[in-house]
């Protein structure tokens, strides 16, 4: 390995000229770079056609169909570290309205959810929400729908981008169009988990929307 080469070079340097030593070093560097490059290149045959997305990989997806109201389907993506990302599931009734979602308003309930600031590792000032607390309101041309917390816990963040870009919900509700991030206590998560559906169960329940997929 390279260490071995270094030893040899050190020993023979005393007999070489400075130019030769320099050449040796350069060659060594080249060899190192080539070796590095070999390590970096993947074996193409091992690469999947479509890799799992960052979400698929890091989160477990749960669904809450008809949450408090029929057609209000929401998702809860839970990360291994316990944080939950909530948003509108693709079968949410709001998407059925023509023109899709046109506006998002976080000023619901007693305060504007987009206004507060959570600070520090201990997440000071985070508001504690129940699962049925309203997080925001999404509006379409016809109607408006309340989006709920789904998981009891501290509200760490809401997706402010939705205020200026409500279209994100139409294009990628499961990624850039997420609604908020909640931090539940382990005990609270266990309680709500039992009432949520996994991906397969959710698909089966909403068969008609998914058709033959």
């Amino acid at each position, binding site marked *: *390995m390279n*260490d071995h080469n*270094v030893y040899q070079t050190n020993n023979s340097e005393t007999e070489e000229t400075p130019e030769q030593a320099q050449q040796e070093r350069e060659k060594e560097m080249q060899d190192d770079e080539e070796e*590095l490059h070999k*390590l*970096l*290149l*993947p074996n*193409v045959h091992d*690469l999947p056609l*479509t*890799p*799992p*997305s*960052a*979400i698929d990989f*890091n989160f477990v997806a749960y669904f809450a169909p008809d949450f408090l109201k029929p057609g209000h389907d929401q998702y809860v993506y839970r*990360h*291994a*570290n*316990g*944080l939950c*990302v909530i948003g509108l599931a693709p079968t949410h009734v709001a998407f059925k309205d023509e023109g899709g979602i046109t506006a998002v308003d976080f000023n619901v309930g007693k305060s504007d959810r987009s206004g507060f600031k*959570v*600070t*520090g*590792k201990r*997440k000071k000032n985070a508001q504690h929400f129940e699962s049925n607390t309203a997080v925001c309101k999404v509006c379409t041309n016809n109607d408006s729908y309340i989006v709920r917390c789904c998981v009891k816990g501290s509200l*760490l*963040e809401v*997706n402010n*981008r939705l205020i200026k870009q409500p279209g*994100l919900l139409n294009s990628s509700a499961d*990624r*850039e169009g*997420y609604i908020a*991030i909640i*931090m539940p206590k382990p005990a609270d998560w266990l309680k709500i988990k039992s009432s949520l559906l996994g991906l397969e169960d959710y698909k089966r329940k909403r068969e008609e929307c998914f058709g033959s997929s």
Partner: protein
Amino acid sequence: MANETEDAPTNSASESHATSADVERNPTDEDKNEKLLNDAVQFLPTDAVKDLLSKEVCLRCIFRLFGMQVPICSSLSVKSLLCHVLGEQADLHQNISSVEPNICRSCLGILQFTYCGDKERVVENESACDFAVAIAELVKKEGHQIDSFSLEVSMPPTILENENKLSLYVKRKYRSEAWFKDRSISECSSTKDALKFALTNPLETLLDVKCGISTFHIRLTYSRVEASIRIQNFVEKIEGCKRRKVDAKNCLDTVKDKSAITGVENSVVSTTEVIPVDEKSSNGLQDNEPSETHEFPLKKVNEPCRLECLCFRTPIYFGGRYLKYSRNVSQTRWIIDEERMGEASIEEIIGGNILPMCRGDSYKFHAAGREDIDVRMLGSGRPFLFEIQNAREVPSELLVKEIESKINSLENKLVRVKNLKIVGSQGWTLMREGEAEKQKQYAALVWISRPLQDEDFQTISSLKETQILQKTPIRVLHRRSPLEREKIINWMKIEKIAGSSQYFLLHMCTQAGTYIKEFVHGDLGRTNPSIGSILGCRAEILQLDVTDVKMNCFLTE
């Protein structure tokens, strides 16, 4: 330096510890020292010496009080000399022993080499050499390989107070004497210095190394035993008592002790104020001096100090760079719910090989940054520092190279070490220097949701010193502050992968602290811009490797 001497005819020499006798052999020095001692002793003011002895001040404290070198030889020979000078009968050993106090009121037995050791046993050493032997044995027992040592002594604050009180007492009492005017009492050495002086030469001889500034420390910590704390509590209860209302001896003792505890510098004065004038047979001593003369300011001591002797080496540091070839090895030991994450850790692989060679107690691992368990560390490697606590042995350069080879030839080839060597404390500063400006180079295996196009290469390459805004990634948001951090992407380059249109290698150089994975996949839009947003499609990262940590430390020379 001259070796220790002992008067040959004295009994204690042959009875004392074998090694102590070795230390004391050297006829010419012996004679010289004896002569010096004799001469010095001639100048001692007999009255003052007798007075101090009667006040339970030990011989060595008397010597140091009068600015003389504390004799290192055995107490017995000192005593016999003294008696000779004082005109007493030298063969009445009982007299000599009774003349010197059991435990000195000033040094609390420290300069009499008496202390309370393990298991509360009182140890009395005849000479500094005996004491040194006990210390040297501790060093040898621990198996330390040393080339020097530094001697540290810590004493309870009472000692300093006692020294001051004693000097003041002598000054007051004898300031009109001729001999007092000739010599300055301020020449007197402190108890601490006297002890260190007494022990240094014997220790140097026994350990065969010099005393001075060293990484190896011998620390002697003297502390008072519990009894004094009890008295202190009692004293606090009778705060402000200036007249005796209770039994004479108790009150006086406690009041005197109180002033000792409150540590008033000029306590000689205040003590005499506090003690009622009509007090007699005050300090429970056998002396009969009239009470008009000053009361002796120091309390009787019944127990010697407790001594804790510690020998240890200050931490030594190993610096170098490590490479991580595995995607299943964490940087530090990572256990969750008693289960280890990953199959091994860098710190255990490297530390586990360094620690035994130093025979140290434990190690601490520090690295210049870190990478995720599934990210390889390649290229020039990442600088690290191992701090080894209390190493019994400092490995030679050759041995350090052997340690490096050993780690690099481990069968599983998970980790590699480069440029391992022992560094001084500058290793720390090297690692911390320029930490914020540190740049790192990465190679990421990226997939995009559409085929790569020619323009993409240019789009990516043309971006230099691009600023991005990263909200705290969701994957660490549970334990880090929710912040928005500005980071710089210095440069980027796409390398095509033969055989694939949607996979490519992304090489980039970024500011320290940038979350690379989030920069690629966008973290639900919370990192802006991201590769996905730049290329206008969805991007995912499959693998990440660190290819260079641009820091100027522990590099190949």
